[in-house]
């Protein structure tokens, strides 16, 4: 249902999300109104979900980023639900992902510095329910982060 033009539009939008509709239309050799109609269709089809601003947490004073890989005690059938519900209440948790594999849940956590991280870890993370094992990866650098799909 997606044609070549749709793909081209999405490719351009992924690589340069800041472009205005008239600029993008110009690049693609189409009129802005035709582009707007195409975008509307992609939205209606649930393909184009929206756009969001990217926040640099370092610039906001959050220098530490840790990826916590958690294994849950699966003998409790409510383990996933209860763990996730409580993890949502921690403001410093940016992402919650669930997996099929060795790791059950991954939390992305930010903190102002190591002391702040220690506090969050002891007070909020270690008190989350049903943790069987927890492992931390400290973030050093983001090499690629555009999350583009290879369209």
């Amino acid at each position, binding site marked *: 249902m997606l044609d070549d033009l749709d793909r081209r539009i*999405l490719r351009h*939008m992924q690589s340069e999300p800041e472009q205005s509709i008239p600029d993008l239309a110009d690049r693609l050799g189409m009129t802005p109104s035709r582009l707007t109609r195409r975008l509307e269709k992609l939205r209606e089809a649930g393909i184009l979900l929206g756009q969001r601003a990217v926040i640099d947490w370092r610039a906001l004073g959050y220098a530490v980023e840790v990826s916590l890989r958690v294994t849950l005690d699966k003998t409790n059938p409510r383990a996933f639900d209860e763990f996730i519900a409580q993890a949502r209440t921690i403001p410093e*948790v940016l992402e*919650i992902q*669930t997996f099929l594999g060795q*790791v059950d849940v991954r939390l992305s956590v930010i903190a102002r510095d190591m002391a702040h991280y220690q506090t969050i870890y002891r007070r909020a993370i270690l008190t989350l329910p049903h943790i069987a094992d927890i492992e931390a990866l400290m973030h050093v650098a983001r090499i*690629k982060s555009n*999350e583009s799909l*290879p369209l």
Partner: protein
Amino acid sequence: MSDLDDIDFGLLRALSQDASQSAGALGRELGLSQPACWRRIKRLQDLGIITGRRIDLNPEKLGFGVTVFLGLKLATKGRVSLEDFERAVSAIPEVQTVEHVLGLYDYRLRVTARDIADFERVLRRRIMLLPGVGSVDANVLLSEERRPGPLGVPQKIS
């Protein structure tokens, strides 16, 4: 950053959910005029707090049914140039994010694929052939949610 107020945090919260909102519409919600709202957004950009925007697409509807996170260890640390590895891994179109980490792994990759067979192709023909790759550990993503982060914290009432 210490001089950001509740309105700035409100703007960040709103824009990190939906960046397509106009300064006029956002301003109305936060009790600002359109120009005042625009100036604040501009300032957040100038301070490097808003670094850009991202398009959210539905991967399943575009035929990408599988997302896998790889924990990757380099085999010969010190012998391979990290820059060479990073350049090569970033050039793989299916690799969506590359993070250099400390801990059990050296790098964490987010890989998208059409299905498990396609993922196997990317893993065998692209990832495993990268210079210096040692062990690779894979976890298939089942669900994912992004939280607003500390922006959602109620501010102290002065």
